[in-house]
């Protein structure tokens, strides 16, 4: 049994975000982090490894520096990494990205008891689409928004969260699960893990590695294979500044209550 975890290196949008004058993101000036939800997927995989001794393979698609992120996850306890990286893969939307990652997983080989795990969504695009689309292209069943995962032989039972409750769903392996932050608390890298992270293998899958995969076709990868295009990107204007009610005393409170009364709130 192996668990394949799909992860993404993303700009840290919680800090200062730099936007270039043309309305695109100035990625070069921003710090990159491991996408937070993906760490929950990593933790879920490592828990299974603790319980069953299964292999944990961490996969990402991105530019060569993304290898550093893979090493961090190897230091957390994953066994090996795969970096999918080629100029031909650039410019991909979610459809084309999932096509390429699915091809990478297919190239690696999926056994009957394997599980693919992803984070719910990435904080840069917030689409939550790549996980389900990988599942579709590998013809795997999926469960998204996993709040609890139990593995029993060749099936998993997942608590699938909804806005107003949850479902318990049973699914046969091989399958794909997307994980939410409530699922677990990701572990830190261990000292031993850091020492061994650079001894563990990281394979690079470039265009040549994957070009004979049935899913890899110039019409379904990269910019050319992406069904969606960006028409324009822009920053919203600041709303005009309002009124600051001076002083933080009884008079100000009365003034604000009066405004609420005029608005028929009270």
């Amino acid at each position, binding site marked *: 049994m192996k668990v394949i975890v799909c992860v993404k290196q993303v700009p840290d949008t*919680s800090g200062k975000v730099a936007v270039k004058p043309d309305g695109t993101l100035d990625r070069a000036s921003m710090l990159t982090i491991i996408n937070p939800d993906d760490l929950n997927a990593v933790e879920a995989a490592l828990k299974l490894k603790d319980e069953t001794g299964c292999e944990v393979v961490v996969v990402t698609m991105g530019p060569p520096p993304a290898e550093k992120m893979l090493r961090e996850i190897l230091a957390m306890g994953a066994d090996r990494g795969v970096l999918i990286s080629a100029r031909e893969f650039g410019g991909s939307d979610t459809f084309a990205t999932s096509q390429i990652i699915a091809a990478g997983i297919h190239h690696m080989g999926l056994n009957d008891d394997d599980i693919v795990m992803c984070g719910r969504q990435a*904080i*840069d695009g917030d689409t939550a689409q790549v996980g389900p689309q990988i599942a579709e292209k590998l013809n795997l069943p999926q469960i998204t928004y996993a709040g609890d995962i139990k593995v029993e032989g060749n099936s998993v039972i997942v608590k699938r969260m909804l806005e107003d409750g949850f479902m318990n769903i049973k699914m046969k392996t091989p399958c794909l699960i997307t994980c939410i932050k409530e699922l677990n608390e990701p572990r830190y890298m261990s000292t031993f893990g850091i020492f061994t992270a650079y001894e563990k293998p990281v394979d690079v899958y470039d265009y040549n590695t994957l070009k004979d995969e049935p899913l890899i076709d110039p019409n379904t990868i990269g910019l050319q294979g992406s*069904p969606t295009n960006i028409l324009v990107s822009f920053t919203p204007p600041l709303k005009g500044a*309002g009124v600051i009610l001076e002083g933080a005393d009884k008079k100000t*409170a009365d003034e604000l209550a009066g*405004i609420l009364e005029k608005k028929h709130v*009270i």
Partner: protein
Amino acid sequence: MDNYNSADISAFKDVWVFCEQRQGVVQPTSFELISEGRRLADELGCKLYALLLGDNVSDKCKDIAGYGADGVVLCESPLLKNYTTDGYTKVIVDVIKERKPEVVLFGATYIGRDLGPRCAARLHTGLCADCTHLDVSVPVYQDFLKEASTLAPERIEGTSSAMVMGEKHDVSHDLKMTRPAFGGHLMATIICPRFRPAMATVRPGVMRKAPFDQAKADAAEIIRPEFSLTEADFETEVLAVEKAAKKLVDLIGADYIVSVGRGIAKDVEGGVALGQQLADELGGVLGGSRVAIDSGWLSADHQVGQTGKTVHPKVYIALGISGAIQHKAGMQDSECIIAVNTNPSAPMFEIADYGIVGDLFKVVPMLIDSIKAIKAAK
């Protein structure tokens, strides 16, 4: 169906809205999407259909159509009683291949965001996630950009076409799907120029529900397409469906919201109680910023922002919330924003209609007293 080709754009017509029901209850976002879908269908000059799947749900057709649909595409089967990725994807893909709508909208709910990507991948078409604005008409879209963007007039003018596969493409018949990206720092408008249907998931609470029209409801055409679905089509089994034990707070439907943030850190219990008290006084509900939820001060159903709910209440009161962009993305369209914060340079003051620079633990009790006094005088 075997000759289905998503690149044959001229073969596709009409707008469809997937109407989500859970245990036979049509989800509110479905009505919002029908209302929005009506406008898009009018701009395209085509019909609007609701797509409803379930078991014994035909009595819901009129409830849905009254918000503006010309008809309902109804697929009923005991196997469709509960939502499953397997069953719903198969049936939806089959009916889309047969009837070829040019636009399909889903609510960006935990179900819509499971189903939409799966359908789009199987149909070989594009899907734009979590949209907050939709247009077809170029002039209407450009008017939106004049209001909602800081783009120069010539760049707005330039949005009537796009470079697609190295050629200039006229976007006047494409669905223009606008959504926040990078935590709300940037907005992007996405098109799906070479394939149909153009598909979008739309954030709940963003589109406004139209008034219910009984005549429209009575006139709706019910279409029951043939489809095949057997137990063999399922690789998953739903063992149980449970409702949350605790009643969840309804932020999206609230007229008044009082939210708390980092500013309550020095006395979390007291701060939450003050926020709740003020909300109760106004007949509103309590919300929170990401800090308040991530720190465990409030449960996740209270979260307002990019990763929480998008709200546009009549009044939004932000207590001790600095106004990180990811929070503003979820509340900046509120009709009136009131901010209380000790830091005069908090970004929240940039979008607030009224601001008080001060300690919420002092200001809010005084405000509650003033409100009580006004009520007592009535």
